[in-house]
């Protein structure tokens, strides 16, 4: 290879690992956060599902009208969250 060209490209190869590492670490950090956000979201969703189940059971067994009205209200809310 031409010695001048060799000089021109001298820093490219040694710096490549650092450039790759920089981008990998950057995207890695972002990915970790996205995973964290997903885990949090899934947790909330599963909690809502559990609550929904208990509510369904409660409304089918209990006949007390007051309680039914109350649970109905709560159920509406949980549905509104689910739609979100």
């Amino acid at each position, binding site marked *: 290879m031409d010695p001048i060209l060799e*000089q021109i490209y001298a820093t490219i190869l040694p710096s490549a690992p*650092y450039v790759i590492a920089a981008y990998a670490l950057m995207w890695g950090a972002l990915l970790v956060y996205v995973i964290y*956000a997903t885990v949090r979201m899934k947790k909330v969703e599963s909690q809502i599902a559990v609550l929904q189940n208990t509510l369904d059971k409660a409304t089918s067994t209990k006949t007390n009208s007051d309680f039914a009205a109350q649970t109905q209200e709560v159920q509406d809310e949980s549905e509104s969250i689910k739609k979100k």
Partner: protein
Amino acid sequence: MAQTNKNRRGQMPSRGQTASRGQTALSTADKIAPVILVLGAILSVLGFVLAFTIAPPVNGARVDGIAIIGDQMVGNQMLFSQKIFYFHMPVAITSFLALGVAAFYEIRYLMTKDSDYDLKAHLATEVSLVFVVMVMFSGEMWERFEWGVWWTWDPRLTTYFILMLLVIGYFVLRAAVDDPEKRASYASVFGIITFIDVPICFMITRLVPSSVHPTIFRTDSGLSTEMMIPLMCAMFGMLFISYGLFRWRLRTERAQEELDRMKQTLDE
């Protein structure tokens, strides 16, 4: 950039959002947030690709002669490490802006004592911590190659490191207070004080001239169009991603709060 900022403000929901109990319709911000997130991802990938393709390499030290590459005469070393800059700077600006948004919500919280503002401030700080960490990672790699050291107490580095410690301190403080109202007030006050470091960090290279930092600004002074395009893609990509992440987290945490309220109602 000012325009982006304005856009982002425009998308922020007004106070009506707070009383989202039983509210079924999605707010405009929640509707467009996923779109913005995807748009940000696309722009970032585009910026990433363009930074390695159309952006010309930056010239480094002079070499002993001139060679012809393609149809251009080249008399300097080509610096590949500068490619880090295309994302390093946008991510840094995004972290500053996210902290600014957090400070805005913290002031709003102290004015209104509305816990929704505290939640927003908390999440904005969380997002900014992610970006701060990204800046540290990318800056660290660049520094290792260009300056040949893992760490140096350069003014910009130092102030940014301090900023990271302060943001971490914000979360440590939150974790150490149990009463939600106290936690919100303390965290807001601390967050506002923390924000003082942002302008210091931003201005420090102009205030305290350092021997090592001008190397970064050789690309800052005269960026050609081919360099501006990837930089701007990365800039808007990162801003959009941060906004999208913020709204996503906000939706999750609001749902969590509502869930807790519902559980309490059920217990009673």
